[in-house]
């Protein structure tokens, strides 16, 4: 079991090296290089100075040397320097990424738990009201743009009904006690988390309904009933754990998509995550930050995939191999 995890982590690292290589290629694709951007920002400069800076950055070296240097730098945590923010990209990322990861995780967990429960309830009455709710919800969840939903939620619950703050992650000035501060952050995070999770909740409820219907028709459920077990034991012990397997798989595959949604939600709600950072860096053509965010996003999905793998292993003994 542990070798499988080590393999999985090594594979994740290889994927990240591939992402760094991609980043490097993207820099090569960009019209002009860092130096051009720097000089343009500085209002132009003479070619001799440009050549000097290029040499300092190693840009006069052959491409493969540049790639290796770049890889080495990235892997040692040197993600470059943002000329616009005037700060190392790594520290920018470390400031922004936790908020985003928190949003992604809480939205995904909320969606999985509530979506699965809703799906289970619906599966117990395949033609009942809850099933219709799941169907309608999943259609709307598929069809609604998350950033627009965020705006609608703001109009409704922040403007029309002023229940929740519209922007940011905390009230300024910050409340005194740690508890009040935590509650304040929570208050700010309700709408963004709800916005992001509701769409995935919809799709998980449908998935879990289908998966549950599948499982409820299986032979081992009949066996469980033949043992005289109470119906809730049959549903929550025997059926749910099996029905959860495809949901865990899909959730793992969707981390990237949820991350994308988080970028949009952060932009709408002005949360201090990677969304606004990415947006700003694109406006300023700040390539190191842009690519740093892409790298940070890739790290997040790789880690999330490894975690999903572990969860799946815990749930499904067949994957674990013969013990």
């Amino acid at each position, binding site marked *: 079991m542990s070798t499988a995890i080590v393999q999985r982590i090594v594979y994740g690292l290889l994927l990240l090296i591939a992402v760094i290589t991609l980043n490097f290629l993207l820099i090569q694709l960009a019209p002009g290089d860092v130096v051009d951007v720097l000089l343009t920002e500085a209002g132009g400069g003479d070619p001799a100075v440009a050549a000097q800076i290029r040499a300092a950055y190693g840009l006069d070296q052959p491409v493969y040397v540049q790639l290796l240097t770049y890889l080495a730098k990235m892997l040692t945590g040197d993600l470059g320097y943002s000329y616009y923010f005037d700060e190392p990209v790594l520290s920018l990322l470390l400031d922004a990424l936790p908020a985003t990861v928190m949003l992604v995780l809480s939205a995904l967990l909320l969606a999985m738990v509530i979506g699965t429960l809703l799906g289970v309830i619906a599966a117990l009455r395949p033609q009942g009201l809850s099933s219709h709710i799941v169907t309608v919800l999943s259609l709307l969840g598929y069809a609604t743009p998350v950033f627009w939903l965020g705006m609608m939620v703001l109009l409704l619950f922040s403007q029309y009904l002023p229940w929740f703050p519209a922007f940011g992650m905390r009230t300024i000035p910050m409340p005194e006690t740690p508890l009040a501060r935590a509650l304040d952050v929570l208050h700010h995070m309700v709408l963004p988390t709800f916005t992001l999770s509701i769409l995935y909740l919809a799709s998980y409820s449908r998935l879990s309904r289908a998966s549950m219907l599948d499982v409820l028709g299986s*032979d081992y459920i*009949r*066996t*469980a*009933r033949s*043992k*005289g077990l109470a119906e809730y034991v049959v549903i929550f012990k025997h059926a749910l754990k099996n029905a959860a397997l495809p949901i865990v798989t899909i959730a793992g595959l969707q981390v990237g998509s949820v991350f994308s949604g988080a970028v949009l939600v952060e932009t709408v709600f002005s949360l201090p995550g990677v969304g606004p950072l990415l947006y700003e860096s694109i406006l300023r053509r700040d390539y190191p930050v842009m690519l740093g965010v892409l790298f940070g996003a890739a790290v997040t999905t790789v880690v999330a995939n490894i975690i999903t793998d572990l969860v799946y292993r815990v749930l499904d*003994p*067949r994957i674990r191999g013969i013990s």
Partner: protein
Amino acid sequence: MNTGAGDRPVLEVDGLSVDFTVRKRQVRILSDVGFSIGRGETLGIIGESGCGKSMTALSLMGMVPSPPGRISAGRILLNGEDLCAASESRMRAIRGRNISMIFQEPMTSLNPVYTVGNQIAETIRRHKGLSGADALAEAVDLLRLVHIPAPDKRVSAYPHELSGGMRQRVMIAMALACEPDVLIADEPTTALDVTVQAQIFDLLREIQDARGTAIVLITHDFGAVSEMADRVIVMYAGHKIEEGSLDEVSDDARHPYTQGLLRCMPEIRARARERRQPLPEIPGVVPDLLKGLTGCPFASRCPSAMDRCRELPPSFALAPQRAVKCWLADASAAPGEQPA
């Protein structure tokens, strides 16, 4: 083997009928089925797929899928208690304790995400109220009882780590956990290799001898019946068409369907195989119950069909526990009304 011949039967089924609602129409899946089993006795129920034998088993367990199904008539007496009248919670207390069942597919009948020990102990905890550790210890004993090697290790194995035969042994251990009065075995060996089949039958017989469990063996295979059963009932299209002891049915079948069934069994007609005759088959197909049959359900395939077969024959009792549902057995019939 028939230890309890004089006693009251453990299980008595009388006039059992099951209806299904299919596209808003009532279809009778099981019609007026009756039989009884004594302690330590094995009753074989034989028939083609779709003849109602599995539905009979589910009725005994109180597990007829509902909707669309429903027991519409009859009584199922287990030690004198009518299961058809029992509440669902009473039925849950009986299921797995007084009457239990093993299924055809050992590969899929165990929950893949729990250890076999957990799944056996679960039944013990449910019905005997034992603690987790005690129940697990009993699970080990049960695995030993069904001859699973290294039971103290296998108790923490997952189903996928066991072979099909081993899994069926686990199913048997689970079914026997509370020493039930009646064990229903629905095609217990169909999915297994021939050698493993024989081992499973040996095991069932051994346990029956030791505990006096009554076994209802449901199968489409006359070989299995002749190996295991004391008495046999033959089912066709939801009807019990013939009943008798194993010898009576195999040597002196009265119903044309039973006769046809026996002709299809190479083991029974060894000489036919020596002459390298092709296996005969019964012409035609099982009738579609949706079409609302009147009369004898076998008439359309029957070589001896006659006018009278448009009317459903009653079950003619030839002797105690010996009956045939066919007009040919009607002693009062005029000699002129013999097969056309």
